């Protein structure tokens, strides 16, 4: 294996906008996919625990030791999901920086003032021949003010919350669209609320609500690394979104559990409008379909993808009964243009 064969791919959490990878087609959750030698791979670790290293350098307000403690807490949060098998192991401090192709997954600060909307970013190194995931690095942009205070600090970004999001990417998760934004003055987007840690936009500095995983995050990581009978205890719903008889690409579909208010989402991921949402608790679910919020397609899809934003939010007219350990069967939802 040589460096030349390795291929680095990047996903980032930004303040206002971000770039992400093409999702794998017809997957049960928005997972990352990539192609090596004509073969499609789902981005995930094949051996655990995943060892990670921490750059031995702090920033004002956060020592390297505090940084390590905060990211360890975030790793622990993902490990604590009882229906997922992913585990992580701290390998030690290193002088290496995130982004170096050294075969080590490294987390640390980098000063990237030109990335004025990027709080943090996750990148991957995959073997260009075998498709194996070699390493995944996360950099935290030290151009921003950071905090590890237990209750958060006004004006500073909570490191543990942002780390939790990025470690979700490190584990192989893409972005969730469960959240609401609005276009603020000057065209920038402002987040109103989020329903998933993997929502692409951070709520705001000083906020620590992002330290806890939401049902959508738990379903996603459990779908990637199922454990504890996850596949037997949960079910999925799949179907097709159409408009004027044609499939809709990029429609955001949310399965809502009316018993407890939990939401798990995914997208229609091909031009036939097919979608699949896994990791649902058995029982009745409401399906809600909406276009991506505020035309923010870049957070989820390549600009070359034919993402359809011209339709009205709609509910499927029947409750869908998700079976235990199975799929609901194909659900057809027709939407109408705006």
């Amino acid at each position: 294996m040589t460096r030349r064969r390795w291929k680095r791919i990047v996903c980032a959490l930004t303040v206002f906008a971000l770039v992400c990878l093409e999702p794998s087609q017809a997957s049960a959750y928005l997972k990352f996919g990539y192609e090596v030698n004509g073969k499609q791979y789902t981005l995930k670790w094949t051996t655990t625990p995943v060892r990670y290293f921490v750059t031995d350098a702090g920033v004002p307000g956060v020592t390297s030791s505090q940084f390590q403690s905060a990211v360890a807490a975030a790793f622990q949060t993902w490990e604590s999901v009882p229906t997922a098998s992913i585990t992580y192991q701290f390998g030690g401090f290193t002088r290496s920086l995130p982004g170096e192709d050294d075969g080590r997954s490294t987390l640390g600060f980098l000063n990237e003032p030109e990335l004025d909307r990027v709080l943090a970013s996750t990148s991957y190194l995959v073997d260009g021949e075998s498709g194996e995931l070699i390493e995944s690095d996360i950099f935290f942009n030290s151009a921003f003010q950071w905090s590890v205070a237990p209750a958060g600090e006004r004006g500073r970004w909570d490191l543990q919350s942002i780390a939790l999001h990025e470690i979700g990417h490190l584990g192989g998760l893409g972005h969730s669209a469960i959240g609401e934004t609005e276009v603020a003055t000057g065209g920038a987007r402002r987040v109103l609320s989020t329903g998933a840690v993997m929502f692409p936009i951070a709520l705001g500095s000083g906020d620590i609500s992002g330290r806890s995983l939401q049902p959508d995050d738990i379903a996603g990581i459990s779908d990637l690394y199922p454990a504890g009978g996850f596949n037997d205890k949960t079910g999925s719903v799949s179907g097709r979104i159409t408009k004027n008889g044609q499939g809709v690409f990029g429609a955001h579909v949310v399965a809502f559990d009316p018993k407890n208010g939990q939401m798990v989402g995914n997208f229609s991921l091909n031009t036939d409008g097919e979608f699949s949402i896994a990791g649902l608790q058995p029982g009745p679910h409401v399906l809600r379909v909406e276009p991506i919020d505020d035309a923010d397609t870049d957070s989820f899809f390549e600009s070359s993808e034919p993402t359809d934003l011209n339709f009205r939010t709609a509910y499927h007219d029947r409750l869908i009964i998700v079976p235990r350990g199975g799929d609901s069967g194909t659900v057809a939802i027709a939407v109408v243009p705006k």
Partner: protein
Amino acid sequence: MRRSLQVLLAALVFVGAAITSSAQPNDVSRVEVSGGFRWIGSLDLASAPANETTLGGGSRALFDSATTLDQSFGGTVTVGVRVSQLIRIEGAVVYSPTQLSTRITDDTEGVPDTTITAPVSQILVEGGVLALPPRWRTRHVSPFAEAGLGYLRQLNDGRTLVETGGSYYVGGGLYYVRTSARPGRVKATGVRGDVRALVLHNGVAEDSDWRPTAAITATFFVRF
């Protein structure tokens, strides 16, 4: 639910008015088989907003939801055995198709309020005791009080999900009996009506909360 309670109260008043007679029929039958219809009132199952987190840890609802198991009308078959002049024990099977309804309101994207449904079949297998005070019987009419418990099985239209639960009931009603004029296997026939306070738990609700409703049953019976 309020409508169900009104029906229950009206029926109890009816039962109370009927127990003033005093003559007693000469009913020597032992086994009773009956078939008929049962109405079961609706059940409130859950109210849950689609909450998202806001800056500072607050919440904002994408929409609100309220889910009910709608009222149902189904068929029932009962087999009872007279244990004494006062007590009769019986078992019943009730098949009662209904539907789950989730009412969606206040969608932030302006989607009009809507109700989303799914058909549900439910089967109740019940066992209970009837008390028929002899002093209140007339020639044709016998009031009774009843109580019992049951096993609940609910399944959706495609049978992809089967949920089980339990039930308890107390109630009362009336027999209208016509005794057979000639001796033979059939000792008596007639109609029976009762009103129950019914409590269901688990099933499609998938929790251990006890949810009250009302039920009204009307059957034709044959006594042997």
